[in-house]
């Protein structure tokens, strides 16, 4: 049976039954209407149960961490995109110009971080929503699944760029790859810094996911 009245707390009603009902009457009693005391409580209603303030605090923390992660990713993207170095000498056979768009790994780095940064900006709205309504589970779960996906993407972008940066620093004897950092020092420094900033964003993503999982727990 369904009813639309929804009182928020306990209430009791005394109903006068009389003598007739006690005389072996196994029949049904008339349906008693429930006391309609309070307005309809829905999922968007006031959150008064215990444990809500904890979720609110973790939502606020979540919001702050997202802002920091946006900063880190922006730093990574800007640092990588502004790499451009041309050495002052040239020969006929060798190129002496290095920039991020000549290496596909760095292009992937920029694109991956841009997608993650865009997602973080959009998810700020959702995060604010979970601050206002801490009991929503659907929004947190959605945030968690997309956080996981974006974390995997950012890790992939940062690691592939890190592998190339490592190779640029050290070279590889077996494959006869010479490390170019001796010549392109500024380029190397900027790309290394960008990779570090991206890994900071990855760590922040990890914290976001664990905090979301913590605040998703149901009370017994």
């Amino acid at each position, binding site marked *: 049976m369904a009813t639309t009245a929804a009182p928020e707390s306990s209430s009791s009603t005394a109903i*006068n039954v009389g003598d007739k009902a006690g005389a072996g009457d196994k029949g049904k009693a008339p349906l008693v209407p429930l006391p309609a005391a309070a307005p309809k409580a829905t999922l968007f209603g006031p959150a008064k149960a215990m444990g809500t303030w904890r979720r609110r605090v973790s939502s606020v923390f979540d919001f702050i961490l997202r802002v920091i992660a946006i900063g880190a990713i922006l730093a990574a993207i800007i640092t990588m995109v502004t790499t451009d170095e041309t050495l002052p000498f040239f020969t006929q056979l060798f190129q002496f110009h290095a920039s991020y768009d000549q290496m596909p790994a760095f292009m992937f780095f920029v694109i991956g971080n841009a997608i993650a940064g865009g997602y973080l900006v959009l998810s700020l709205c959702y995060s604010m929503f979970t601050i206002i309504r801490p009991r929503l*589970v659907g929004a947190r779960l959605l945030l968690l699944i997309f956080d996981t996906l974006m974390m995997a993407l950012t890790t992939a972008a940062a690691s592939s760029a890190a592998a190339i940066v490592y190779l640029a620093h050290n070279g590889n004897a077996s494959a006869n790859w010479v490390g170019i950092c001796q010549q392109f020092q500024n380029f190397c420094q900027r790309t290394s810094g960008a990779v570090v900033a991206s890994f900071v964003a990855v760590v922040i993503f990890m914290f976001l996911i664990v905090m979301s*999982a913590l605040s998703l727990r149901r009370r017994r």
Partner: protein
Amino acid sequence: MHFDCLQVIHLHINTDVLFLISSKQDHLHNTLVLQTQFVETMKGEGALEIGEPSRALIGGAPYVNKDISIFDFILRVVAIIGTLASAIAMGTSHETLPFFTQFIHFKAKYSDLPSFTFFVVANSIVCAYLVFTLPLSILHVIRSRARNTRLFLVLFDTVMLVLLASGASAATSIVYLAHTGDATANWFSICRQFHSFCERVSGSLVGSFGAIVAFIIIIFLSASALSRRW
């Protein structure tokens, strides 16, 4: 409705609120005292803490967590197979070209490239972690209410996902470089010489990426199991 002495009646309302109605007969005053208590619950998951008749109302909901845990277990087994296959395929990659000179190497092994070493190590660590957490996963199937162990698993699954994704992407980057080379840095593509080494190494990436997808789904499943009442 038929009232009896101290009978508790459940009333499940379809959307999001739930009432507990208890009744007591007050013989002295010949009245029936009805007490309603507002117990709220999640939308659509009409869970009740007491009483058998409630199960009939909510259909198969008590067993969703078990299904989630079973699926989680299956995905873990899939991820074990993927990471193990990747580690073995990369670890046994070895090629020697039939000619040699004084200055140039003509042997290729996974340990020549640090990224590939990291890939093998990362896959091995993740495989060992998954094998150790299989009992925990079975525990979740049996006892669906375990909350702290699920949280523990979510934390470590996240860390392992990052490790695995990191290893796989670094190896992919180097494999791409081996296939196409790089004009800026004058890095020659070694796949033209070491053909079978390149193929083997490229194929070993597939298992790792499959395990990454499995991990993402595992984390989401654990989190959604945490958010359910059972």
